């Protein structure tokens, strides 16, 4: 798909397009993004707009480049070519958060949960008293009941991931990246964490980009599902999820939701078969 077709497709699904002018000003604009690993071309001249204040789920075949995409947007790995701007600004001019899949290896086990959450503020040279106040304010705002005097290894997996999400939120980021944040949790904890994330999203209105390998989760949480093709990854579809928030268990059996999910599955399977 070339850029013009891409624009058309975006338009057909009712989403802001770089060509026809924004319905709503995009938050992140990605233009001409290219990335290869050795001989494997993961991205070749890739364009995408991420709308402001939305939760975008990224879904696609294994190894298609989902992690690579958000890692490039978050500056964890360099791009070969292309431009990624946030309201026209570069990454180092904005505040952002990143939540890793492997919370066990992402938190600092030598610090108590509270100090883990406050750590990014230290990197921003916020004074200790202010750090404490801001962390306490965040905890109170989220209404999360957790003993933050514990060390991460004394907590359950879900609690640890909650701590790492709070650590990402403490700087009041403009955008939050999450790479399969719940995939290392058991099912019960995953369901709980989805609700927590939805609540956080509704409370903060932060733009969020979530990589998920669970289609139901991807659709359930998203305003738009970004469906990627096999690499070199292209936008296979950018599906609008219309269900109202807060979404609940009832949403899962809602006719519109089921239709959207079926549509995503269809696109996904078409992309998988096109090997």
């Amino acid at each position, binding site marked *: 798909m070339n850029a013009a077709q891409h624009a058309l497709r975006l338009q057909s699904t009712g989403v802001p397009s770089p060509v026809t002018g924004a319905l709503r000003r995009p938050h992140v604009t990605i233009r001409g993004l290219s990335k290869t690993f050795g001989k494997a071309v993961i991205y070749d001249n890739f364009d995408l707009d991420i709308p402001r204040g939305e939760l975008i789920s990224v879904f696609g075949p294994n190894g298609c480049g989902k992690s690579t995409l958000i890692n490039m947007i978050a500056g964890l790995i360099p791009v070969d070519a292309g431009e990624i701007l946030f309201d026209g600004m570069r990454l180092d001019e904005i505040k952002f958060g990143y939540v890793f899949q492997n919370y066990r290896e992402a938190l600092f086990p030598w610090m108590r949960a509270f100090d883990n959450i406050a750590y*990014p503020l230290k*990197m921003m040279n916020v004074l200790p008293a202010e750090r404490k106040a801001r962390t306490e304010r965040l905890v109170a705002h989220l209404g999360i009941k957790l003993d933050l005097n514990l060390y991460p290894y004394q907590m359950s997996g879900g609690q640890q991931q909650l701590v790492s999400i709070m650590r990402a939120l403490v700087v009041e980021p403009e955008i939050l990246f999450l790479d399969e944040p719940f995939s290392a949790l058991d099912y019960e904890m995953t369901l709980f964490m989805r609700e927590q994330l939805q609540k956080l999203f509704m409370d903060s209105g932060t733009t969020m980009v979530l990589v998920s390998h669970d289609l139901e989760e991807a659709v359930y949480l998203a305003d738009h599902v970004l469906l990627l093709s096999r690499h070199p990854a292209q936008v296979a579809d950018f599906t609008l999820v219309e269900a109202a928030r807060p979404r609940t268990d009832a949403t899962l059996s809602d006719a519109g939701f089921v239709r959207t999910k079926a549509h995503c599955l269809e696109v996904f399977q078409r992309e998988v078969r096109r090997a």
Partner: protein
Amino acid sequence: MNKKFEPFLPIIGVAGLFAVWFAATAAKLVDPVLLPSPFEAGKAFWQGMHGALGFDFVKTIYRTLMATAIAAVIAIPLGIVLGASEKLYRSLEFVIDFFRSTPASAMFPLFLVLFGVGDETKISVAAFGAILVILFNVAYGVMNARKTRLLAAKVMGASRLRVLFDVMLFESLPQTFVGLRNGVSLALVIIVVAEMFIGSQDGLGHSVFEAQQMFEMPRMYAAIFAAGALGYGLNLIFLLIERRFVHWSGK
């Protein structure tokens, strides 16, 4: 079996050892001159620790800890620097590995020439051995810092120096303690050997050697026992310190 008894299980092995020892001497299976009864050896240990053996014991502790301390002060910062730069480590890896594999005892003559027959020689040879062990472990610990944790710090805006002190240093601590424990054990081995041979007047090595020369077997066993207790005790102390300061290790 009742759980309450489990902490006492190790005592069974100790009691068994003494029982076999006692039986062997009582049945005169071994020449009593070569292997005195546990009571004779115990008596020699008890009396010795209140006299000459106690003095030797303290001397050996002092030399071992001195060597380990010197080694730690040199090796830990160096290990961090080496570990933080993969290229630097790779270029020195062979040299470190080579000297780590060289028996430190082979260095005695060289160090004798450098430092004479005093304490300096013993301590510096032991420190030399311990440095390489600690250095290797610290560098290894820094290099094997979890990539995700380093990335996490970077994403939160930590500078390279911050990553080094806030993350790598802590990440390397468990491995550093492995190095310290191995280092202190090696230092003790080297010190005891040095005390036996290089014109030594005191220390556990000297005590063992002297007792053997004078055929005072109970005293020799007492000194061997003291050396064993020292080695075990040092290891235990380092383990306790580790548990206190590296509480997250292995979790």
